């Protein structure tokens, strides 16, 4: 009874709305747990928040307490849609600009159209009922806007939401698809940024694959997709000597070297003349691999200098020395390190050197400042030694004086 009244209370229309008696709620609240679970989750649904109720989607007459009448075809009752019917079911409003204007005029109305262009949508049309429809991602009765952290489609929750199916090895095997994408993503630089550091700007499944029109980006487009954020990398690559060869061989422009779901933080080892990615095509003693070696050397130099400077600053700070300015310089070098890495995509060692130069200069200065401070710290001890000598001398002199005076006094 208390659960029932709590549910009723939750479902009670907002204070200023007229207290309507929703017979669907009253009756279904007395049914089994599954009914009550739906009522409970719907209490927090965005549709309920804007004033919609059961009958808004499922049809029927919510004012009638005769369930035969309320849920009759004459009253417009449509019940729960099958999977194949779901896109159309949601599209009743979401594909209708006039309907959406009433609630959220800025929301697009092309989701269903886009959905049918996706792999999910095309397979659904071909009669496959195992694919995802609206409710698989958005839930049926606990729908929240994508910006709401409790939403199933909030960026941090998306890997889990997609993973419901895409991490299911048995299900994926029937499509000859791998089921390790979510695991790979979670270990990638993007997954760590999103899931560990909480950077909600980091890309997640739908950033590259699209939402409603979800498809793999494909060879032609992947460069642009990555280039949305990694603009310079794409620009340099496309203008560089490698782009044409890549096109001819139908290589993924980014993924060939960086993988796709398990994109790890790139290190200079990618350019290694032994095991680096360049060796996939170029011979060990080719000028290209030599150029890669030169770029790697430059990256290693600035990265090494960056780390050594950090260690020098920390060593000085451990002595209680203020290293704020050295830290600022060091911080500034990070930008240069970043740009040097980006410049690798020009495949020209001199460009990498050019980008690394200001960073090397800054780390050099910062390191000198830290070393100087430590040296200065050493000088303090010498000066303290001198002062101690004088202080001790004077104290000793005074002590001897007192003894002299006292021996005179007897």
């Amino acid at each position: 009874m208390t659960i029932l009244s709590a549910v009723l209370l939750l479902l009670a229309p907002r204070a200023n709305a007229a207290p309507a008696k929703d017979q669907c709620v009253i009756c279904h609240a007395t049914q089994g747990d599954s009914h009550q679970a739906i009522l409970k989750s719907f209490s927090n649904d965005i549709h309920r928040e804007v004033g919609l109720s059961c009958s808004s989607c499922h049809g029927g007459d919510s004012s009638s307490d005769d369930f035969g009448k309320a849920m009759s075809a004459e009253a417009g009752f449509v019940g729960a849609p099958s999977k194949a019917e779901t896109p159309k079911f949601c599209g009743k409003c979401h594909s209708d600009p006039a309907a959406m204007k009433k609630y959220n005029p800025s929301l697009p109305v092309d989701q269903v159209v886009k959905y049918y262009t996706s792999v999910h949508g095309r397979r659904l049309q071909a009669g496959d009922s195992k694919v995802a429809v609206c409710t698989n991602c958005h839930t049926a009765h606990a729908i929240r806007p994508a910006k709401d952290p409790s939403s199933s489609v909030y960026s941090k929750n998306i890997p889990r939401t997609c993973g419901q199916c895409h991490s299911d090895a048995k299900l994926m095997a029937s499509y000859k698809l791998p089921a390790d994408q979510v695991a790979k993503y979670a270990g990638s630089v993007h997954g760590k940024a999103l899931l560990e550091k909480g950077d909600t700007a980091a890309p997640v499944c739908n950033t590259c694959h699209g939402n409603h029109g979800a498809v793999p980006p494909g060879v032609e487009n992947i460069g642009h997709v990555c280039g949305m954020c990694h603009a310079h990398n794409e620009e340099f690559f496309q203008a560089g000597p490698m782009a044409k060869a890549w096109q001819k061989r139908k290589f993924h422009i980014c993924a060939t070297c960086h993988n796709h779901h398990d994109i790890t933080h790139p290190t200079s080892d990618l350019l290694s003349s032994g095991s680096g990615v360049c060796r996939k095509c170029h011979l060990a003693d080719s000028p290209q691999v030599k150029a890669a070696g030169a770029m790697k050397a430059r990256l290693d130099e600035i990265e090494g200098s960056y780390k050594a400077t950090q260690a020098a600053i920390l060593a000085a700070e451990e002595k209680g020395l203020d290293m704020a300015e050295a830290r600022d310089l060091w911080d500034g070098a990070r930008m240069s390190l970043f740009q040097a890495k980006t410049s690798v995509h020009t495949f020209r060692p001199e460009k990498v050197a050019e980008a690394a130069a200001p960073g090397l200069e800054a780390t050099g200065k910062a390191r000198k400042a830290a070393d100087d401070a430590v040296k200065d710290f050493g000088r303090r001890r010498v000066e303290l030694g001198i002062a101690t000598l004088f202080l001790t001398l004077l104290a000793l002199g005074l002590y001897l004086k007192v003894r002299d005076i006292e021996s005179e006094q007897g």
Partner: protein
Amino acid sequence: MNRRQFIDLIIGGGALGCLASAVYPVLRYMLPPEQVEAEPDSLKVGAIKDFPAGSSKIVKFGRKPVIVIRDLKGGFHALAATCTHLDCIVQYQKDNDIVWCACHNGKYDLSGKNVSGPPPRPLDRLEVKVAGDDVTVVKTA
């Protein structure tokens, strides 16, 4: 030299040494260092002629980098130059009249509002005051 004179010598020498070891650091302390202020409230960033329309300049304001922009219409803007995404230094893109971060393609409008890409927050704004020929950046209260 007798014992008494020797002790007086120790005391005299010691006292002089102690005085010097105290006076020297104190005098050095009292001489102001080159960088006169710890954290400025305002900073002169140049003359108007240093800023043709559609140009920008990164300056250090205290410890933080600040980007001073003169837009195509001649208006001045000053924003914290550290991108709110991953702390890269932003730049002014004359062609689009926006502030851009090269690291992950983040974009801000000239009022500092993050308009596209990954930046989660706007850039902090500073005031630009033009008095005569001087362009000065002032911390907003």
